[in-house]
């Protein structure tokens, strides 16, 4: 009798905990960064999993890389009229929590399909990129080199154009080699690289 009673109490307890729910239940609100990142989902998708071609996926992004970019946007070192105000907001709200939230989310690779022919050409051209971004395109978080695998193709394309024009982080000496490399790649080659990296899983 005693044993049965205990089991019942436990079961009822679980049911009550489940039914009360609210902000205390297991859910997205448990992560302190979730609410602070609410405004981001308009462009970057729920949990940072952008479904569009132009907007980058933030889910699974290394917290250190995310933080570095937010700081660069806010200072104007990485010029972006869209991101500069939001970066200032993120710094005020608490970049550590927002960065931690996105880093903890499971990345869903872009749903934008890549042309197989373009991806194949891109794979050949990517040999030089792999020196830093790795054979798998996943980058090196310790060196603040971002993952490109499964990233939104339109975003990859735009960033490569900005590197080529030297309008992304124009004063950053660490990106000199990257920009020199991008200048050797013709515009159709940029499309191919975007197709290739977006298709990696």
């Amino acid at each position, binding site marked *: 009798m005693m044993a049965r009673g205990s089991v019942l109490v436990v079961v009822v307890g679980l049911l009550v905990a489940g039914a009360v729910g609210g*902000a205390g239940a297991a859910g997205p609100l448990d992560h302190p960064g979730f609410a602070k990142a*609410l405004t981001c989902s*308009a462009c970057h998708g729920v949990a940072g999993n952008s*479904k569009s071609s132009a*907007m980058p996926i933030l889910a699974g992004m290394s917290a250190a890389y995310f933080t570095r970019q937010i700081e660069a946007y806010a200072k104007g070192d990485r010029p972006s009229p*869209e991101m500069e105000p939001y970066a*200032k907001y993120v710094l005020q709200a608490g970049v550590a929590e927002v960065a931690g939230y996105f880093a903890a989310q499971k990345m869903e690779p872009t749903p934008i399909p890549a042309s197989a022919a373009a991806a194949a050409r891109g794979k050949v051209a990517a040999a030089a990129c792999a020196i830093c971004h790795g054979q798998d395109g996943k980058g090196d978080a310790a060196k603040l080199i971002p993952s490109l695998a499964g990233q939104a193709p339109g975003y990859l394309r*735009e960033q490569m*154009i900005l590197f080529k024009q030297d309008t992304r982080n124009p004063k950053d000496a660490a990106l000199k080699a990257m920009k020199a490399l991008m200048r050797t790649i013709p515009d159709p080659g940029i499309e191919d690289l975007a197709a290739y990296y977006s298709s990696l899983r």
Partner: protein
Amino acid sequence: MRQRVTRRQFLRTAGAGISLGLAGGAVSVGLGGCAPAMKGDFMPKGGRRVVVVGGGWGGATAAKYVRLLDPGIEVVLLEPNREFVSCPFSNLVLSGVRKLDSITFRYDGLQKRGVKILHEAAAAIEPDRRRVRVGEGYLEYDRLVVSPGIEFQMEQIQGLAESQDKVLHAWKAGPQTAQLAAQLESMADGGVFVLTVPPVAYRCPPGPYERICQVAWYLKTKKPRAKLIVLDANQNIVSKTGLFRAAWRDYPNIDYRPSSKVIAVDPSTREVRTEFDREKYDVVNVIPPQRAGTIAVQADLVGADKRWCEVNHVTYESVKAKNVHVIGDSTTGLPVPKSGNIANAMGKVCATAIVHLLGGKPAPELPPGNTCYSWVNDREAIAVVNAYRIEGGKVVQIEQKLTPAQSALVGHRAVGWAQSIWHDMLA
């Protein structure tokens, strides 16, 4: 237009995020949309319930996010239309750059999140009894979200109310968008298109100027002898002023007249009248003065101006009715534009506040954000972005930034924004 069911665009862009429903898509829950069945308490409330009035940018987002944050809360969405048509990007339909299909979506995604959708209009709100009247019955709620958008003050312009079939606003995307596009297309080369801009505050501050760009681009391309006369009730371009001025250098066919408030329209003589002038037109597009959606006015959620609703900046609870939250274009008092992005942001913040309040916790202080693109031709766009914080319980702006110039890259990001935010609202 409503019969043209197309999810192709959405699916193409949204991919795995949305699964296909069967033909028929969004269906009325329980009642089959049958008004006579709605008598008394026709959907008795079990646990906690949020009712959302209006399935636009604010309401659809709020409904989705309450479910996302706490699936234990029942959400009922009241929206008469079976499909959602996006106002952002609808000016591109006028210029023929986009089809209405590509900005029309169903509500299937919300249903999959467990939102119960009734394709009915809310008839009245009874805050004291915590219920909304629908048909001959009512729905009880714990918290109500009112997101009714705007209504037109037709009475402010003589002759407008009785000319609704001929004098179009196309300021609520849908059938009128296609009708105005057809009027523009059938206008003779050498014709005069008159577009009138209402005094602030109105839905989408840069919207009329984007429309001017799209009509001028279309005329320049297809009817090079035609002219666009703009009668603006305001003293200058209301939003993105310098960027629009720069864009208009490509359009010598624009005759822009500020401080020209329209007071009358007469389709029989094809004439609009301002306080000082008369203008003949071949096609006219009158964007009328606006106020909060009718239900908000009837429920007396509006302030002394009888136009807009004041709200708490953290919870969006009405200052006039307890447990009633107002979001989107109907609100006033926040330093934010009446934009789709702001309504979407308010929907998320309001949903978060409601989930906390229903759980007996204080609402977190979360500001909205605004990203707003405008198309200046068929491929180039401009943008304004506003970030905010909460200070002493009020929304204050951190910063506003504009794109330095129009470009195709900004246009590319505009498409990304639209695809993402439609997904954020509806998937």
